[in-house]
């Protein structure tokens, strides 16, 4: 998954990596998103008072989001009182920045869960949308301060917190995992620090919320630092096989290792010219 980034790192690249990619094409499912740079968002300091930005956000909202979330952003309730489209009042700028900033919103089609897509808006537009939603209820979580996103926290503590709070869904190496009925916890490799932080405080879709009372901002910084550390430091043992664990290793042993040896036995037993 993180191969593209590794190539940029030149010094750590294995000559075998290219061969490995071809061999593992079936196992590795997509993932060029690592190319995205981790530049910190310029509008992160949530200037909700900036009325011009709010007005601009409202215009964008009415044009792109209101069809589902309603003109006043209160969502939509069906005849049985069931919320079919969620209200955005109180979700905060952080939720908007996460959902729109990762391309999950605007949604294309309904499915088990909203998928990551190409981002539809510019950074400025996202900031405007976020400012507008924040203005609806100023108590909502805001876009995190850059000091929590620097990746310079305690990786050891972060690793431990990650394993207790996150690994059961996202896998110990952040490679992702399955949930019920077609839902899944996404791969965290290559996800911007800001989005990881926002996911924790807003609990998008089926992810639980990790409020600051549960994991303090400093805890979150540690977790992010751990994930970024894993990204920056490729496995000591060589190519990672997508970090999916023993199943992929087993398939590799059967198909690649045993397959190669069977080809060699054929050469060995074939009559020479």
């Amino acid at each position, binding site marked *: 998954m993180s191969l593209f980034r590794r190539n940029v790192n030149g010094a*750590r690249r*294995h000559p075998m990596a290219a061969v490995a990619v071809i061999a593992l094409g079936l196992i590795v499912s997509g993932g060029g998103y690592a190319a995205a740079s981790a530049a910190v968002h310029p509008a992160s300091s949530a200037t909700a008072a900036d009325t011009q930005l709010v007005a601009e956000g409202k215009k964008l909202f009415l044009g792109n989001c209101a069809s589902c979330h309603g003109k006043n952003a209160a969502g939509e309730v069906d005849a049985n009182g069931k919320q079919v489209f969620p209200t955005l009042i109180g979700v905060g700028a952080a939720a908007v920045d996460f959902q729109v900033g990762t391309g999950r919103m605007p949604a294309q089609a309904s499915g088990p869960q909203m998928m990551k897509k190409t981002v539809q808006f510019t950074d400025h537009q996202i900031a405007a949308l976020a400012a507008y939603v924040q203005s609806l209820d100023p108590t909502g979580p805001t876009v995190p301060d850059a000091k929590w996103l620097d990746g310079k926290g305690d990786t050891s503590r972060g690793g*431990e917190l990650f394993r*207790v*709070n996150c690994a*059961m*869904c996202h896998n110990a190496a952040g490679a992702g*995992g399955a*949930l*019920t*009925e077609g*839902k899944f*916890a996404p791969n965290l490799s290559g996800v911007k620090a800001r989005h990881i932080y926002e996911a924790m405080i807003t*609990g998008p*879709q*089926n*992810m*639980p*919320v*990790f*409020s600051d*009372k*549960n994991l303090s901002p400093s805890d979150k910084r540690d977790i992010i630092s751990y994930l970024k550390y894993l990204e920056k*430091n*490729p*496995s*000591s*043992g*060589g190519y990672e096989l997508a970090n999916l664990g023993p199943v992929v290793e087993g398939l590799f042993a059967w198909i690649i290792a045993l397959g190669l040896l069977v080809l060699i036995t054929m*050469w*060995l037993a074939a*009559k*020479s*010219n």
Partner: protein
Amino acid sequence: MSDKPKAIKGAANASDEFDYSAGLAVIPADKIEDPGLEPHHVRMTDKSKKHEKAAARQVALLFFVSIFGSASALVIYFLFPLSTTEFGPVRENTFWLGLAIALGTLALGIGAVHWAKTLMPAAEQAEARHQTRGSEETRARAVEIIKLADQESGFSRRKLIRRSLYTALAFFPLPGILVFGDLGPNPGRTLRHTKWAKGVRLVHDPYGAPILASDVTEGSVFHVVPANINPDDEDYLEQKSKAAVLLVGVNPEDLTIAPDKKGWDYNGIVAYSKICTHVGCPVALFEQDTHHLLCPCHQSTFDLNNGCAVIFGPASRPLPQLPITVDKDGYLIAQSDFLEPVGPSFWDRSIN
């Protein structure tokens, strides 16, 4: 007809071979005749001196490559030292060392096989094969030996000796089995109790901070252990593996509470054992929207809103609930221990 035996005749000593029954095999009367071994395959190296020499050079070259590989592994061992402060260099060390050794062994192996294939005789040879069964003479002698041994020892004759020997042999391993008795203690009632008790605070796993009820907002999940266990305890992991709890905040209106479990939650905050009732993995995948808890090992799914009843997967029983409340400072505490054994089912879990 089908039971007719078929003789397998050995070329050399047909008379020695035993005729076995062919069972349901059909013995064709006019089988197509065996043309015998095909003619030898002639290789280029058999025909041409030039090819033979080239092949010999290739084999030697491969062996030289092998020497180079193994020798460079020796150099690499010193060329890529490890660091005492960081693990970065391990990657290079592993890669280059492995590559050099692989070169050494692969070239050696390929060289040897190439040698065999191109320069050693290519003609297949036939060797006679005899039945595994001993000849009549051998078998008769074997029987004779056994009879002799029996006679000389009186094994069949002397009943008392024989029977006491059998009994002695049966008794002899028993102490050997018994000494394994101290492999583990009587499990007693250890599976029925955890460290949870009335008034024990629910604290964060792993750093032990107590939890205010007001901090458990709707949709949030806390991984919790009892305050009375500590990583420095001798039995920390044993206690934790029974006492681990998942604390979830939900909208109280969404909860369906069984009559006998009224008052076990605190304003929509519920605490359930994290240990799966199937085979004991930590069930910790909480879906905020559906309120489902999923076990990552075997996919048992529990409905948190409905007393953690099993709705999918191989588990059979709901996750046990820990009755909780708050103390005077507003921190969450247990009302008591779990009221049933946690974790996987066992034989007498329902018998007290």
